[in-house]
């Protein structure tokens, strides 16, 4: 492999990591507040379409991005409604959301298959883009990737350096304690789910605005599920989410390159790689969580448990 090829591969890995990173961060927010959202796949699918159609109509990628985020937040609001108000099972509601979201995205998007969109184009960051190797890998990307560099810091900051984040974490660990402290756990959960949905939506928007620049069905292709898995792999920490997303971006970029290069390996086997790797990552994090006595590796204590009404 030539050095140029390796640099190109790494740059592609960073690009492929971006949507997964946004989605993983979104799911971290939701789960930190105590709500398991298995609807990420559907949310990304919807958001990808919302972003595409907005960009297609208005011509503005930024508006498209915003639309993607809002669509994600809205759909997750539905999850919030079903689980928090109607006390529906979070696993089932998330699955329903995925089925609904993927279906809706394909349904609405069918007339637009094959239509291109401007979206976000790559540009070199002044100065930084000139750094050998690193510049090419990290700083000749599109605007959303650059946004992706800040997102983990922002999520970390929100969770550990703001009162809102403290309340979110308390709600995910023990809603009753948050309530006793005068906070409103239901509202905090709804915020976590919907803010998380916004981030997942950004991830979905990336797919249509920056990844393909073209509308096709089935864009999310399991990335939402990978994100849910990566939250476990990341031990619910934004920093480790970056690591996980890069790992997956790397594998996805790698198998795409191999396919493009016309290798003998059947494409079905190459396509299996990310999914098999997800299972491996789960096995890895499970064994790590077992061996380390660190409580920080554990899921939020009230994750998946609805708040029962009283009174």
């Amino acid at each position: 492999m030539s050095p140029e090829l390796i640099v190109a591969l790494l740059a592609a890995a960073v690009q492929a990591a971006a949507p997964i990173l946004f989605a993983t961060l979104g799911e971290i927010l939701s789960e930190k507040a105590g709500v398991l959202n298995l609807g990420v796949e559907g949310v990304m699918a919807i958001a990808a379409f919302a972003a595409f159609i907005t960009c297609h109509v208005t011509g503005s990628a930024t508006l498209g991005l915003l639309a993607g985020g809002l669509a994600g937040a809205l759909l997750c609001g539905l999850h919030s409604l079903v689980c928090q108000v109607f006390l529906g099972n979070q696993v089932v509601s998330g699955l329903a959301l995925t089925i609904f979201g993927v279906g809706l995205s394909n349904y609405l998007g069918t007339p637009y298959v094959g239509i291109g969109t401007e979206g976000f184009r790559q540009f070199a960051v002044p100065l930084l883009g000139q750094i050998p190797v690193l510049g090419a890998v990290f700083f000749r990307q599109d605007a959303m990737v650059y946004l992706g560099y800040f997102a983990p810091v922002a999520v970390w900051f929100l969770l550990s350096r703001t009162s809102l984040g403290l309340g979110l974490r308390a709600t995910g660990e023990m809603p009753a304690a948050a309530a006793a402290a005068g906070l409103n756990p239901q509202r905090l959960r709804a915020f976590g789910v919907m803010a998380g949905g916004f981030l997942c939506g950004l991830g979905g928007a990336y797919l249509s605005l920056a990844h393909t620049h073209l509308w096709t069905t089935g864009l999310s292709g399991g990335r939402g599920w990978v994100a849910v898995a990566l939250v476990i792999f990341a031990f619910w920490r934004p920093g480790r989410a970056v690591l996980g997303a890069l790992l997956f971006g790397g594998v996805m970029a790698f198998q795409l390159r191999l396919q493009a290069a016309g290798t003998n390996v059947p494409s079905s086997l190459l396509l299996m790689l990310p999914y098999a790797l997800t299972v491996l990552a789960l096995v890895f994090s499970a064994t790590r969580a077992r061996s380390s006595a660190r409580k920080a590796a554990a899921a939020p204590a009230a994750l998946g448990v609805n708040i029962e009404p009283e009174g």
Partner: protein
Amino acid sequence: MNVVIRRRETSLGWGALVVYLGALALALGICAVLLMLSGKPGLGGLAILFRGAFGQGYSLLDGLVKAIPIFLCSLGVALSFRMQIWNIGAEGQFALGAVGATFVALALPGQPWPVLLPLMFLAAMLAGGLWGLIPAGLRLWLGVNEIISSLMLNYVGILFLEFLVFGVWKDPGSFGFPMTAEFSPGGQIGRMGPALGLNLGKLHWGLLACPLAGVAYGVFLSRTRLGFELAACGEGERVARYANLPYGFLVLLVMGLGGALAGLAGSIECSATLGRLQPTVMVGYGYTAIVVAWLARLKPWPIAFTSFLLASLRVGVEVLELRLQIPAAFGQIMEGAILLCVLAGQFFLDYSVSVRFARLRRADSAAPGLEERA
């Protein structure tokens, strides 16, 4: 205004029917709105859908045919849902079942059906069951979340199926289409109509698997000790440990059985409706089965009924597709919307909601006459 929510102490009885119908109506309403958004007649579209699903004898038969794999997969996932094990890998187990059956069918061509079909079923159940055992084992011994591992194995399983039909199993005579050679007659499940001298459309003998599996499921859960232990395990691992229930064994059992049932469904599907293996065998029955299991609250009769309902919905959507040029994804939307609405509606089965309006401020109302209710 004061909203009071309380857990019901007695079941809602017939009111449950109202709840279900209401939720269904809401979901259908959402779907009608979506139809209108894309410039199609909303209620008219629904009418076409229902006529397509239930209007003719053959459409009902078609629904019954589609209900077979859904019912079998659904029984399998319901088994694991009963103990709070979230097996959402029926789709992949279905794929592996189809692969297993095809392996036998291609390896033993020309055998008579009494030999070949049982072997195919066996191989399918074995393959599906083992595929289901992977997430079970990972969960038991390594603590890996079975939701995601079983789902990821769906993708892997389907891609494995594609790998085979695009590659080593591809029929040289298929003009490049990804499909295996047609199974020999002994490897194909026959239709019921000709044998019974009735016009039963595509209905095939695979239907017989449904009552067999359904009765076994019901008897197992309500009459046997192991079935009882399974229900008790649904309360969590701690209770299982306290009561000395074989939790680990049961996890393996339900995932293995669930996989076997999904595998059986896969083999029936490719043997009876396609007569060969091709990627189009995967149409999402495994996911519909999850919807069915939850809508039916994991009970065998409702699972049978709901399987038929959602299968008919698929038939109706096919008609809608043709008549109004609606994308096939409309069926998925309907399933998702119905599940979301019913999930929200089931709240009213377990909780009572009363709205009370604030009384006038009576500061010193000692409220005599209320104490005898204490």
